[in-house]
């Protein structure tokens, strides 16, 4: 593979969750999701209800990838923000390096406020993700990764569970 896995340790995860909680409160948003550009959900916070955030993450990444492709066709690097306004619910997506900040909001908030608050936390999220990438590239310093010990039996038993 081109790159190794991304490892999100508990401390970083809680740092991200704290930023998302603050953003959600300050922007009066319904749900805030942090997504890696390839479509993997990193963390989520808010009134989830029956919202399928895994699919939301995948589609948001597809959306950004498609509009990024269009941007390149017209000579832009990418479009740093995307907004979709519905009758009741809206979505705002900010591209922050390799991560996407997806904010779902309704009439309790406004696009202007969500844009402002998203921008205000973007540096913080960017710094945390940079730390995650750095830690992911280091070889397991505290020996806490159990995957080196995965046996063929472990993998077989995984499939017998389905």
């Amino acid at each position, binding site marked *: 593979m081109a790159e190794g896995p991304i490892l999100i340790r508990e401390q970083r995860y809680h740092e991200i969750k704290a930023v998302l909680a603050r953003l959600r409160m300050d922007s009066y948003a319904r749900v805030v999701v942090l997504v890696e550009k390839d479509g*993997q959900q990193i963390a989520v916070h808010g009134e989830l209800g029956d919202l399928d955030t895994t699919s939301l993450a995948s589609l948001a990444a597809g959306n950004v990838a498609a509009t990024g492709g269009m941007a390149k066709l017209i000579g832009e690097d990418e479009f740093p923000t995307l907004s979709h306004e519905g009758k009741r619910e809206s979505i705002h997506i900010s591209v922050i390096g390799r991560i996407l900040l997806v904010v779902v909001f309704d009439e309790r908030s406004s696009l202007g406020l969500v844009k402002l608050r998203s921008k205000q936390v973007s540096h913080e999220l960017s710094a945390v993700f940079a730390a995650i990438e750095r830690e992911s590239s280091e070889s397991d310093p505290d020996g806490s990764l*159990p*995957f080196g010990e*995965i046996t063929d039996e472990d993998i077989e038993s995984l499939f017998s569970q*389905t």
Partner: protein
Amino acid sequence: MTFINYASREINCKIVYYGPGLCGKTTNLQHIYDSTAPQAKGKLISLATDTDRTLFFDFMPLELGTVRGFKTRFHLYTVPGQVFYEASRRLILKGVDGVVFVADSQEERMDANIESLYNLEENLRCHGYDLMKIPYALQLNKRDLPNIVPTSDMVTELQRKGEPVIEAVASSGSGVFDTLKAVAKQVLTELRKT
């Protein structure tokens, strides 16, 4: 790219089904979706045209169980097979952990298989991946049809590196889970290297 979350004890991997138009990529996903318990899967998202041809991608998350205390979730994607959706196909390969190439066994589709396989290698290279190193399985689909190429000829033409070859009839489900298992095993084996 595999995501390992220590807080939620989850491993997330991305597997892409690749192949020429109408080879049965979406049918593979549809069968997995239909045969999996509700608690193990999310929604099957299909971004398709009005005539049910894949426009951008199909997507479904599938939870297999736990390994070493971590929930393993595979994110399954298909690419649009039609030649003119090249830009979309390339985008979907970004961050891939494993690839399934679905070949159409019908004689008249052999050229399309070969073209699509070269296209896969090229698009992987665009993202810095090498087909020879990435977890990979070859599925020979539509083995129930009358006008098919013999398995040995397909293997000679399409097998790249001794990857697992699975004969399948995706419309009835035959070989679908064997294919998924073949690629998922390789992806999990890669984790040993972390």
